[in-house]
């Protein structure tokens, strides 16, 4: 008996120690205390749970920075308290996102801002949240069949088309190309791939050898590019509908700019070297910081100012090339990216 109790207590102590070891610094903690009513119920406080696809993807970390900046700005500007709770799972999982939505509602959040890993999986949870009085807005990847009040993001079909159109222009409308396609289950990426294929069909000289899926980590994506290049030595262009592979440095040496051209979506600090070297003459940047900033702003407009907001808020892509590299680098720096190379900032 004593052993069993000791086991229980040790496990509990371990749990306590583990939890105590956790940093509180980077997460916003609501100022609710045991026994005290939550301020979430007050009109001048808005708690927004942000649930992106994965906390290991740098684009969502930028969105988090944007959301937290918007919360700070709006709190100061309108004399209200806007609070952001980061509930993003460590890796992509629609089921875990649905659980996080339920948890946010149970914890008394006023609104949820979510990028859906799998719309089908989160539709029910979003509808339940809305039925329980919590406003839900989507960004990046939508759940159009749910009761969310608004979506902010790019038109994915158009993004795929633009990526392939830029690549076709660089290749003078002829040659074999491959599409780097990310997670095969993500509906927004599937639409981008479709857009890229549709656009390629407009160029008789362009031949798509395939759309290649991979785990959405920089290393896996870069390895896939190398594998495909070895398997298809005559590939002359890559349409990357996400920037994963360019978050590594390895392709700076593995890709020959004289032989292969790349056009990719996203333009984060790690990718800028590819523009400089000429491997990726064009990056189509999603202003990912704005996912968080505009998302929080829109929610505050709706909940606090009772404004009507459009159901679809389109995000425009920014074309980044050598001509505006310095300007874009400074923009990234201003959005909180600390890893922008100083040489680009001086351009």
């Amino acid at each position, binding site marked *: 008996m004593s052993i069993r109790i000791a086991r229980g207590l040790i496990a509990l102590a371990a749990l306590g120690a583990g939890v105590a070891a956790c940093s*509180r610094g980077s997460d916003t903690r609501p100022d609710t205390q045991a026994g005290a009513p939550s301020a979430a119920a007050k009109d001048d406080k808005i708690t927004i749970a942000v649930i992106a696809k994965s906390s290991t993807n740098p684009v969502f970390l930028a969105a988090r920075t944007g959301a937290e900046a918007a919360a700070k700005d709006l709190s100061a500007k309108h004399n209200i308290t806007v609070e952001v709770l980061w509930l993003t799972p460590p890796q992509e999982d629609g089921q875990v996102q649905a659980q996080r939505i339920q*948890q946010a509602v149970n914890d*008394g959040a006023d609104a949820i801002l979510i990028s859906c890993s799998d719309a089908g999986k989160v539709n029910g949870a979003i509808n339940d949240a809305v039925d*329980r009085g919590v406003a839900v807005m989507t960004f990046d990847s939508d759940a159009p069949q749910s009761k969310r009040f608004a979506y902010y993001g790019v038109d994915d079909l158009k993004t795929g088309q633009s990526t392939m159109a830029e690549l076709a222009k660089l290749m003078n409308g002829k040659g074999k190309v491959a599409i780097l396609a990310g997670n095969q289950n993500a509906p927004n990426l599937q639409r981008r791939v479709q857009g890229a294929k549709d656009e390629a069909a407009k160029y008789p000289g362009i031949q798509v050898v395939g759309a290649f899926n991979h785990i959405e980590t920089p290393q896996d994506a870069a390895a896939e590019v190398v594998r495909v290049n070895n398997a298809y030595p005559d590939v002359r262009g890559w349409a990357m509908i996400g920037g994963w592979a360019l978050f590594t440095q390895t392709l700076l040496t593995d890709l020959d700019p004289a032989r292969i051209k790349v056009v990719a979506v996203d333009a984060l600090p790690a990718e800028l070297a590819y523009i400089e070297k000429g491997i990726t003459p064009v990056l189509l940047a999603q202003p990912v910081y704005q996912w968080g900033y505009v998302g929080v702003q829109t929610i505050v407009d709706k909940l606090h100012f009772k404004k009507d907001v459009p159901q679809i808020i389109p995000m425009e892509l920014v074309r980044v090339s050598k001509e505006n590299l310095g300007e874009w680098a400074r923009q990234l720096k201003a959005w909180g990216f600390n890893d922008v190379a100083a040489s680009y900032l001086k351009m």
Partner: protein
Amino acid sequence: MHGFLRRLVGSQETGLVLVVVLVTLVLTLLAGTHADRRTGEIVNNFWNSFTLIQTATDASFFAIMAIGATVVIISGGIDLSVGSIYALAGVTMALVLRGAGPMSDGTTVLLGLATCVGVGLLCGLLNGALVVGLRVHPFIITLGTMWMLRGIAFVATKAESILVPPSLTAVAKASLGLGGGLYPVPMLCMLVLAILGTIYLTRTVMGRHIFAFGGNLEASRFAGLSLARIQLGVFAVSGLMAGIAAFLGASFYGSTSSGDAQGYELYVIASAVVGGASLIGGKGSALGAMLGALLIVLIRQSIRTLHFDANYEWIVIGCAIIIAVVVDQWSTRVTAKRLSRAADAPRAAA
């Protein structure tokens, strides 16, 4: 009566229940409160019906698979393919129901359940047949089928996320009179399956054979047990449980895809191990697996409820698993020493 109480208090599950209760108490005390949006009533952030049922629901999918995995682990094997069986069973159900077209709600639910259970059972039997037939360690076989089965699911769906008919969701999300927003069905299924699993393992001949097989293979062979049948049986049970979990998961969340339950096999095995199953076989229980899953989900929930940095989740879970196993081994050694001393005492007295 005294003996029963002694066994109850000294059982592995009692220790786990104690830990679960203590974690629940700590969370309740530290969680803080908020005003309910609809009623304005002040509610505890953790100790409220929504969060408690949500926590149990989150655990139920792991727990049901962990009950099956525990049966395999007791036999001295391992099943790494449960997540893939979950995904394949779910997408097969969705494809079958889509192909079958509109049907009555009852027929839809029965066909969906039969498909999931059938696919799960078949996959389990395949694992068992390969382990027995090829005489290859279950780790290797199920590592292979983990990829194969997910690949089949991927090819079959062409990476599409398929919605399941609303009648399935209506069953999995039935409030059973508790009111809107409360969905106790997965939790109840978990409890029922844990009880059935306990009866299977402790009150049936097959259950006893599994413990014997995992505890001492040579003795089982000399005792004339059908070893192939036992191995086939444990993998069939594991597949069956993954099929049931897939039915509940796909129905509850309303859609299914080939990417479902990716990496869940590790949570499932962790639940079984935290629940007291020994990876060398011969030890474990269905109730322990359920409690192990609950404890892991509670640890995850505590990080969220107390608003700690979620990035530390994996570190905390990893530490908890290692500590649980180390403490378990330590207690086994202490118990063995105590028994040995007790056995030596009469001899010394003589």
